[in-house]
């Protein structure tokens, strides 16, 4: 036995090391947010192997990046976390000389207050957080606005994101407040309003809510637009509703964290994503909206005209982009922990 261990040990260590010697990129991304084919294509073109790990909320990503320090080469935070992490010095300034394809992006999405001059971030995709219903279910078919989610007939039929901003946002919007409200009285009020809603919630999931919807575990889901897009393609009875009270919009950007080891590879990856063809492929497969103007032109008409992916101007006017809340975040967190423990 001892001999077997002695033989095995160096072999295994050796195996682990040979892998480590390859050209690599550690990508830390939202789950179901980048097509496998895009990663293989990148590896084929550059010889850089992508090691993907996933998260389901900005908070989880932030905590992990802060803790591990080194290890991740590329992350995809939402706007509020770009500004927070930028301020805390957790991000590396981008080298624009390496990003030749930057010009493909929609100028409206660049140079925003969360990251002036795009020092740290390059927009990856944007989308909305709204309601998907399975119209095969009579109770779900009746849902047209946020207030309907509280209806008792939806008991045990509702899915909410596992993300504090998205859930608190529902309460704030129903009360007519901002998605980014920082007034503690308003947050308190929204929190109280959300408590009875918890009786309707079957599951919290931001990873792959479409699964629960497609498997008939839930009939109504508050989810990100891309998830709704894939679900509606699989089951045409699933519809996506932009509630009249308003809804959240978000923009996720590619950033390089401070401790990144493979900085050049990370830049190569960003520049690769910025290609119009790649941008179009991602938007088509994931069902999120691309900030890449030229990529949108390459999309088939049914995607370009799909209101889930590219809502019209009037709908967009009701949406509100998420911004950093600073210290108020703690109030959201406190309410969120309490809500998740409510039966």
């Amino acid at each position, binding site marked *: *036995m001892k001999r077997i*261990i002695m033989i095995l040990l160096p072999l295994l260590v050796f195996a*682990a090391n040979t892998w*480590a010697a390859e050209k690599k990129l550690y990508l830390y991304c939202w789950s179901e947010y980048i097509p496998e084919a895009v990663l293989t294509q990148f590896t084929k073109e550059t010889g850089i192997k992508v*090691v993907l790990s996933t998260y389901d909320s900005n908070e989880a990503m932030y905590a992990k990046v802060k803790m591990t320090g080194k*290890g991740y080469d590329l992350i995809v935070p939402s706007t509020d976390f770009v500004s927070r992490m930028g301020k805390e010095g957790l991000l590396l300034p981008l080298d624009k000389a390496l990003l030749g394809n930057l010009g493909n992006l929609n100028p409206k999405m660049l140079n925003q207050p969360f990251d002036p001059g795009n020092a740290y971030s390059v927009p990856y995709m944007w989308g909305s957080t709204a309601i998907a219903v399975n119209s095969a279910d009579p109770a779900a078919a009746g849902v047209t606005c946020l207030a309907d989610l509280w209806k008792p007939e939806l008991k045990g039929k509702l899915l909410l994101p596992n993300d504090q901003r998205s859930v608190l946002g529902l309460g704030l919007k129903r009360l007519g407040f901002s998605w980014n409200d920082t007034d503690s009285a308003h947050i308190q009020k929204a929190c109280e309003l959300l408590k009875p809603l918890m009786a309707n919630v079957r599951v919290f999931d931001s990873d792959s809510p*479409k*699964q629960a919807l497609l498997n008939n575990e839930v009939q109504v889901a508050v989810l990100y637009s891309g998830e709704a897009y894939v679900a509606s393609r699989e089951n045409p009875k699933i519809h996506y509703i932009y509630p009249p009270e308003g809804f959240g919009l978000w923009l996720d950007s590619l950033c390089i964290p401070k401790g990144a080891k493979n900085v050049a590879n990370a830049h190569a990856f960003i520049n690769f994503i910025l290609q119009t063809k790649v941008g179009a492929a991602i938007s088509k497969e994931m069902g999120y909206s691309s900030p890449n103007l030229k990529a949108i032109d390459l999309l088939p008409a049914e995607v370009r005209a799909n209101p889930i992916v590219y809502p019209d101007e009037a709908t967009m006017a009701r949406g509100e982009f998420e911004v950093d809340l600073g210290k108020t975040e703690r109030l959201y967190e406190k309410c969120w922990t309490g809500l998740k423990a409510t039966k």
Partner: protein
Amino acid sequence: MKKQVQFIYAALIYFFLYLPLAVMVAYSFNASRFTMQWKGFTLHWYDQLLHDASLIQAALHSLAIATCSATAACVVGTVTALAIHRWRFAGRKTIHAVLFIMMMSPDIVIGISLLVLFMAISLPLGFWTLFMAHVTLCVPFVAITVHGRLQGFDPHVVEAARDLGAGEYEVWRHIILPMTMPAVLAGWFMSFTLSLDDVIIAFFTTGPTFEILPLRIYSMVRLGLKPEVNALCAVMILITAVAVVTTQGLLKERQ
């Protein structure tokens, strides 16, 4: 009558223990992608599994960490057990109690306390932190197994060796270590399975540069049912079954 009731009861428990595994193996051959309806026999998912390099890498990482930490835990655990058995010193009982408490500690408590420790000395999470965490997890099990075996010893053997002029080191090398070997081996296997089975401690103590199989499965499971995961699990069940049967056979031959 009574015998029959007993038989049925035991059969029910085994049914409960094996049903989920059987169902999963069956579904790994199902051609349907999203739903659980049976749509015909296929080996497609196994083929996909073979081509998933990152999954295979995670599996190799798991084996590497289990081998390394089991071996290290055996060294530390055996030395600890021998020390508390052989020498009388202040704090001997305390060490024994501490080992027992460590063995009983819930994984989540071990996981977060080690995370806090690694953060306090700002160690980047990865192979080494996971290695140390798994060694910490396994040492008490090895130490207590080996200590149990040592208590069944005849102390006269050591005395006899002493009388014949053996020094402390020789006594350890030629008498104590060979006699404890079976317990050390049992401890090694126990540590190996503990390390392979662990999800919680690895969740807190490893980083992006060293992903292991359970964590990889965890992130796959969160994305819903996937036939590839079924196939992977079926392979793992097969490997375990073969390993268990062969070790049992080997042990029998030894006896």
